[in-house]
């Protein structure tokens, strides 16, 4: 469970996230929506400890990210919005590095790397430099790294962008399974079809402020005339 309590973040006088209050429960796939520049990535970066929080607190399974960062960080896995990390390493070196960071035993590591990279179709590329990977391959490498240590809480910033249909399907299945086991899956996206298929609950943010939080049914009910999610989204994020 992730709980965001009255969190505010400012960049050089501009408020990117304003008094955000949000609880992401266990056992559900939680979608985080909003137009470009709404503050999604900023929020996620505060949850993961990349950006310091100006005001408010964030806890992951009860551990405060600012006060007990090590304990909190061991619980979640994070896929950043840009998968261009450690380009000078080979895929396998990156995954082994992640394994060392999370102190995974060797046999588990080997088995999981084998399973994950084969299901994403990047196994054969493992001995190449990440620099030579395509965008989607990099994305899948990072995702494999996150799933390697089997974290309870998944935090994914636009995880499906750039994935081909098969990999996208694989990841969505994995997200469903993980949530079904009672864990937390929190991801941001722009793709409304994905939201419709996948999410149990959604939060919509615009200009750093929460516009809506609830399940899909509630979202549609609130705008009774619309059966089209796109229209609902546009209405919710309309500034005027």
């Amino acid at each position, binding site marked *: 469970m992730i709980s965001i309590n009255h969190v505010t973040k400012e960049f050089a006088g501009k408020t990117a996230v304003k008094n955000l209050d949000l609880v992401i429960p266990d056992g559900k796939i939680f979608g985080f929506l909003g137009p470009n520049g709404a503050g999604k990535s900023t929020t996620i970066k505060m949850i993961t400890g990349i950006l310091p929080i100006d005001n408010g607190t964030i806890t992951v399974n009860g551990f405060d990210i600012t006060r007990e960062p090590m304990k909190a960080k061991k619980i979640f896995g994070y896929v950043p919005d840009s998968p261009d*990390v450690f380009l000078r390493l080979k895929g396998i070196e990156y995954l082994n590095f992640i*394994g060392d960071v999370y102190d995974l035993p*060797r046999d588990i590591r080997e088995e999981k790397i084998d399973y994950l990279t084969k299901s994403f179709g990047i196994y054969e590329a493992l001995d190449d430099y990440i620099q030579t990977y395509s965008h989607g391959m990099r994305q899948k490498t990072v995702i494999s790294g996150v799933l390697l240590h089997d974290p309870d809480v998944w935090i994914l910033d636009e995880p499906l962008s750039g994935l081909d249909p098969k990999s996208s399907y694989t990841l969505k299945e994995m997200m469903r399974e993980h949530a079904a086991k009672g864990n937390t899956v929190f991801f941001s996206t722009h793709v409304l079809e994905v939201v419709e298929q996948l999410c149990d609950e959604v939060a919509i943010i615009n200009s750093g402020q929460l516009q809506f939080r609830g399940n899909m049914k509630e979202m549609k009910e609130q705008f009774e005339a619309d059966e089209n999610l796109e229209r609902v989204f546009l209405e919710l994020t309309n500034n005027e």
Partner: protein
Amino acid sequence: MNKTLRLIHTMLKMQYSMAGKSTGEKLGYLFLLLFLVPFAFIFISLMNSIVATLYQQLAPTGNENALLGLLFVGITFILFFVSLSSILSSFYFAEDIEGFIPYPFHPYQLLAGKAAAPFISLYLTSGVLMVPILTLFGIHSGASFIYYLYAFILFIIFPVVPFTVVAIILMFFMRYANIAKNKDRTKVFAGLLSFVFIIGFNIIIRLNQDPGQTAEGAAALIQEQNGLLDLITGMVPTAYFSTMALNYARELSGLLFLLLMLAISTGAVLLFLLAGQKLYFKGILGLTAGSRKTFDPHKVTRKIKHQPVVAAMIKKELRIIFRTPTFFMQCVVQSLFAPVFLIVILLFESSSSSFSMLGTMLGQFQGKTSLLLLFVFSLFILGVNPASYSSISRDGRNWPANLYLPVHPEAVIFSKAATAWLINLLSILLLAIIGIAVLNMPPGLFALWVGLTLLASWFTSLVGTALDLNQPKLHWTDEQEVFKSRLISLFALLIEMGAFGFIVIIIWNIDAVEGLWMTALLLALLLAGAIAISHVVLKRLIRTHYHNTI
């Protein structure tokens, strides 16, 4: 034309912009500039005395124009060298060209944009020598206004030909040579080449040092008018034409020579643009990074192994340094430069037996003196460790990974400092080889010296890392930015020189400290103190800065 200028402006702005620099850093540049003013005076008066002496010696035989010839030939060679590195970095190593290609620019416009940065380096270089020497020559020879006008025009057009020659050779080479297929390898190759070039240049100069012969040859040549000039400028026609233009500035032939220079330079520009369109784009777009080989599952499983986090972090740092050409050149090759240079000099001088005696001489010195001398010497050779003051900045956009992965901040930072220390180990190893093999140092002295140097190297690694953590440069697009146009190496130098100078001066002046072992003990204690302080400072910086770097 307007569009070309706009493009040049944009390309230059991306390279030299002061945006994103803190006011502290800007102030630092200002101080550096002020600091240079007295040096400029010393430089100009030095130039003045050289020009005056040579002019007085050459004028009686009518050979004073040889001075100009010498200047133009010398400048040509310097410009060749500057062109080589600046064209490589602007044309081939900067990544920005791919960003511009999709836009509707003519190829010649892109080439002009790319040439702008090298030309700035060329004018800065030639300006330092040409402007004062040509002015001083004019004063000494009582030249007319036309001379100064011609000199100015020549200053503007003179770099064109060396630039074009180097650019065309490079573009041709990069287009057809095999190394160009791999960008990373080319970078390392070019870096090593200039390294070898400088050392080879030094060796040639050393081999040719036979002063008697040179003087005789010069004396014979001065017999005939213009003989010296012909000799000097024989290989460089543009230097000859430029000299003649200035020499006969008052006459029509001077004007003709100037027009000839203008024509040659215009031709060179056209040739550059023409050849560039044929060679450059094909060469650059063929560059790829990395190579593909067949896949072997066993190789993959062999790479999976369990190790402590700190070991994994250090390994990762070392891999990135050795695999990124810029980091490899800056952190590894450049810091090996001084020790390798030293070895070359020692090998060439060893015949004169003065150096092989040095070891025995050191043994005869008082233990204290020889240890302190050696210690200062090795610090001087090691210099500031670039791997240390780039610790954080090297991560660039990967830095956030340190923040979201569950690794303790101190583990991250100290493994970076340890990496810098490990890289310095290479230079220390070379120094140690010199000490044992060339200088025949006594074993006790040798062991103490190496031990103390290792301690000192830990101190410099910590200082560099702390400075970088204090103000890292994470938002770079090209790795060069981590090292270029930052004052951090200067700060590192000041702090390290201050600390070591303080320690050495204290020990030197305490008369009660005598003998090798006592000196070593005190030195070790003071170094340990300095290390302890830098540990405390670094830990404090981790607390205040680690999470606030973005």
